[in-house]
């Protein structure tokens, strides 16, 4: 009970250590999300509206990658960035950039697979009209992304939820270094193992609040879209 009260105090008093960790978590996840969205949304859309040999295999692999264990992603990115790895010369291991890379690898298949499903449904509806209007290629991709904007926002928020809650990959490539790569999830894991439940609980509460906010945003976006017949 004391730990809980102390955790609340840390939040209310805007504890510097806590908010440093919180800010790094949000920054890393938002940058990873932005990079991933730029890759995954056009990729998902392109997969939904084009037909080519091997397309089903690509979709199968994409869907399989959605469930890829974070520690495996962490290990892959670690091998890439370690001193003896192909990108070792960049010196990125144990930096926030390494964590961003790991999160991009982790959430890109998730957003791409979800957006592929959203756009495929829309494509069923729009296909004949777009054909009739001569809307193809880049113009079609942009049109699908614009028209599915609300559903895609949900996909993106799902990606953000996954990124911010991730621990396995970022602890491997980030190293959980204090004041450098320590984020909420890795801090919770560390503080719990040390028996320091106060900070762990405070971070847990913030993480839970963030998760609730993201879900509230998803519901809000859906309701707005439904009301305007944009869903």
């Amino acid at each position: 009970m004391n730990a809980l009260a102390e955790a609340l105090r840390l939040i209310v008093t805007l504890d510097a250590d806590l908010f440093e960790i919180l800010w790094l978590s949000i920054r890393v996840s938002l940058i990873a999300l932005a990079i991933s969205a730029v890759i995954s949304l056009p990729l998902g859309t392109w997969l939904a509206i084009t037909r080519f040999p091997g397309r089903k295999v690509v979709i199968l692999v994409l869907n399989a990658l959605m469930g890829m264990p974070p520690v495996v992603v962490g290990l892959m990115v670690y091998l890439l960035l370690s001193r003896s790895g192909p990108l070792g010369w960049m010196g990125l291991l144990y930096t926030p950039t390494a964590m961003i890379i790991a999160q991009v690898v982790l959430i890109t298949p998730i957003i791409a697979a979800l957006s592929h499903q959203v756009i495929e449904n829309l494509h069923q509806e729009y296909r004949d009209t777009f054909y009739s209007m001569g809307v193809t290629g880049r113009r079609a991709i942009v049109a699908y992304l614009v028209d599915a904007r609300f559903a895609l926002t949900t996909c993106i928020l799902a990606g953000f939820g996954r990124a911010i809650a991730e621990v396995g990959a970022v602890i491997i490539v980030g190293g959980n270094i204090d004041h450098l790569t320590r984020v909420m999830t890795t801090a919770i894991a560390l503080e719990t193992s040390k028996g320091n439940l106060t900070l762990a609980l405070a971070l847990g509460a913030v993480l839970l609040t963030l998760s609730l906010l993201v879900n509230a945003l998803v519901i809000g976006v859906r309701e707005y879209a439904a009301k305007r017949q944009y869903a």
Partner: protein
Amino acid sequence: MPDSLLPIRIRNLRLIKGDRAVLDGVNLTIEELGITVIMGSNGAGKTLLLRCLHGLIEPDQGQITLGNLTVADSRDQQAMVFQHPVLLRRTVLQNLAFAVPDIAKADPQQLLAALDSVHLADRANQPARMLSGGEQQRLALARALLSKPALLLLDEATASLDPASVLLIESLVKAQSKRGTKVILISHDQGQGRRLADEVVFMSGGQVAEQSPADQFFTEPRTPVAEAYLAGKILF
């Protein structure tokens, strides 16, 4: 107005679905401007023929030429209005602007005039999918006409609309026909056929059973199957 796509020649068109020929050797020549109405009972192959003509379906056999062009080459001179209009999840005006290939070159005055012609100017900034069925179909027609097509195809575009919306769409189609656009429309409505058609193509069993001037078709159909259809008898 683009070059005429006439004559439209359809030769021995066959389309197989499962083990059945749903278009079974369609031969048809359309030479004149004006409005051609395709009639026939459900399953006669009307929609499939129109979709082949528009390039939405690739037939298994046969040939279609429009003037000197193939279906693919004539696509940018064609426009089609479907029975159920598909509107983008955007405003009415944005839906119309989407019909302009280079949206930066869209002339707002031209777009508003087009909306005005279908009595939707006051709805320009509303979400298009909140319009009524008749309004949505009028918007779909305005969108189709924006490209100034040489050939306008309408697949039961007024089915399930209220009489006022039907008459408004008919007047727009007639006006467009007078401007030199060839119109081919599918309808089950004999009244609409009498009001609009210069020529009627009657289909039955995946084939063209009869092609006649409208006056003749409605007074003296040449085939028993067309006669039965006009008398409201169920055809099997």
